[in-house]
């Protein structure tokens, strides 16, 4: 590009400094807002995808009258006998409502002595030694649960009140590491037998069954067979959860729609103001340029340089601000869109994930439109005779 033209364009931007600064500020703000919300959504999706492979291959639930109900533990034996299944295991879990704080905890029963869990316990739980708690009722809690219990003066134990009214005292044996708070903030992990007592689930019943199928190719066949044997069940394979994670945010309605409408409305006012025509001073400028010998393409090139400079600076600064806001400041205020009414809010540490498609989409949706909205009216003014434009 001609450097003289570049500096001429800079001069021209400078001459209408106040107006251009206002456009730059609004444009930057729009891009920041749009990029922040999409980056934040992408980051939460990334967090989900990170742990997807640790989930069970197949989860079997029993449905009754459209609701999930407890299922018969004996189903485990039938499911294990299906070819391709290496392990089927009943799970006992549910929710415990802690009335004093008004929060729901997720209570999960776990067989602490199964070999695959030993390594995981060592990795995910802060100083926990199972041998010290062999002969007592114990639990491992998430950070949020611990904070809630501490706020209610339970520092080393908790009294669960079962649905029949009996009190069950359980010692606090460990806490999940802080980095896992997005996964474990509301979780209470305890031995299966204890979970049965707390949630009052009989020996012969279970919440759901998880199935391990070593060969991923066989999963659809196994799912089909389970469904054949138990028509009243809902079978959710890992692939289903993957597709569910892909569509977790409702970008087409609700809060996002409201936000996108606001952003695009603001942007189109900006574009409309530009596209609706040049003011008298700008027209005169183009007329003078033509009178001193500029060609139409020179005028268009000047306007292209001007608008690109403005739009690209707005885009660059906007994306930078968004990255700073989302990943370094941890998206204050905006994160509340995702946590809703929840009282038990985790300390969020958003994983860094920058999706090039998202950035590209924001670029395409804003920058070329703005540039076109500047060039087209200028071109229209430039094709008219110089004396007519100046008059």
């Amino acid at each position: 590009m001609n450097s003289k033209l570049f500096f001429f364009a800079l001069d021209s931007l400078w001459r209408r400094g106040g107006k251009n600064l206002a456009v730059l500020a609004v444009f930057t703000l729009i891009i920041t807002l749009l990029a922040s919300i999409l980056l934040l959504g992408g980051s939460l999706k990334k967090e989900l995808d990170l742990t997807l492979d640790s989930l069970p291959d197949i989860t079997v639930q029993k449905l009754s009258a459209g609701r999930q109900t407890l299922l018969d533990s004996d189903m485990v034996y039938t499911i294990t006998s299906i070819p391709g299944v290496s392990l089927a295991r009943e799970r006992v879990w549910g929710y415990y409502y802690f009335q004093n704080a008004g929060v729901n905890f997720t209570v999960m029963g776990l067989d602490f002595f199964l070999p695959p869990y030993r390594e995981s316990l060592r990795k995910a739980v802060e100083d926990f030694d199972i041998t010290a708690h062999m002969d007592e009722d114990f639990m491992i809690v998430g950070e949020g649960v611990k904070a809630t219990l501490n706020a209610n003066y339970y520092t080393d134990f908790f009294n669960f009140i079962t649905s029949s009214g009996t009190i069950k005292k359980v010692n606090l044996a460990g806490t999940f590491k802080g980095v896992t708070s997005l996964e474990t903030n509301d979780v209470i992990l305890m031995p299966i037998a204890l979970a049965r007592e707390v949630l009052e689930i009989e020996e012969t019943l279970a919440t759901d069954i998880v199935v391990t199928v070593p060969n991923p190719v066989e999963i659809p066949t196994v799912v089909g067979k389970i469904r054949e044997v138990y028509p009243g069940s809902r079978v959710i394979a890992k692939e289903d959860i993957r597709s569910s994670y892909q569509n977790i945010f409702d970008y087409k309605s609700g809060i996002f729609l409201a936000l996108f409408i606001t952003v695009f409305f603001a942007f189109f006012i900006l574009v409309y103001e530009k596209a609706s025509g040049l003011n008298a001073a700008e027209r005169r400028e183009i007329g003078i340029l033509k009178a001193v010998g500029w060609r139409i393409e020179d005028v268009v090139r000047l306007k292209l340089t001007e608008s690109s400079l403005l739009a690209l600076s707005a885009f660059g600064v906007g994306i930078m601000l968004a990255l700073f806001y989302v990943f370094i400041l941890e998206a204050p205020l905006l994160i509340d869109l995702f946590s809703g009414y929840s009282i038990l809010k985790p300390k969020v540490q958003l994983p860094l994930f920058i999706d090039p498609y998202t950035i590209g989409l924001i670029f395409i949706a804003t920058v070329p439109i703005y540039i076109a909205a500047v060039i087209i009216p200028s071109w229209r003014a430039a094709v008219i005779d110089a004396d007519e434009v100046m008059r």
Partner: protein
Amino acid sequence: MNKKRLMTAFIAIFLIVALLEAIVLILMNRTQTMQEPIKQAAVTLTGLPDLALSTEARFVRHRTLSDLHAYFSEEGTLPEYFPSAFTYAPPPYQHAHARIAGE
């Protein structure tokens, strides 16, 4: 020239800030990558999907495992009333027209 100097200053500040931000983000990314196995171990233990970001209702806390009719958990005519229902979409296999992939 004053304008040129100002422009150079703007570009310089932009580049310096961008560089600093990139360094911070790269360092952050490195620590986060090291923490990934811890998160995976935690999910191996719980075996539960979804994030504990919103725990107000079952259909957001365990969105992928919730009931087909969880939106009507209180009564058939009562629509969803938690703000998070306006943020999270139900899993695709809970739409009436969709099917579970294995079918």
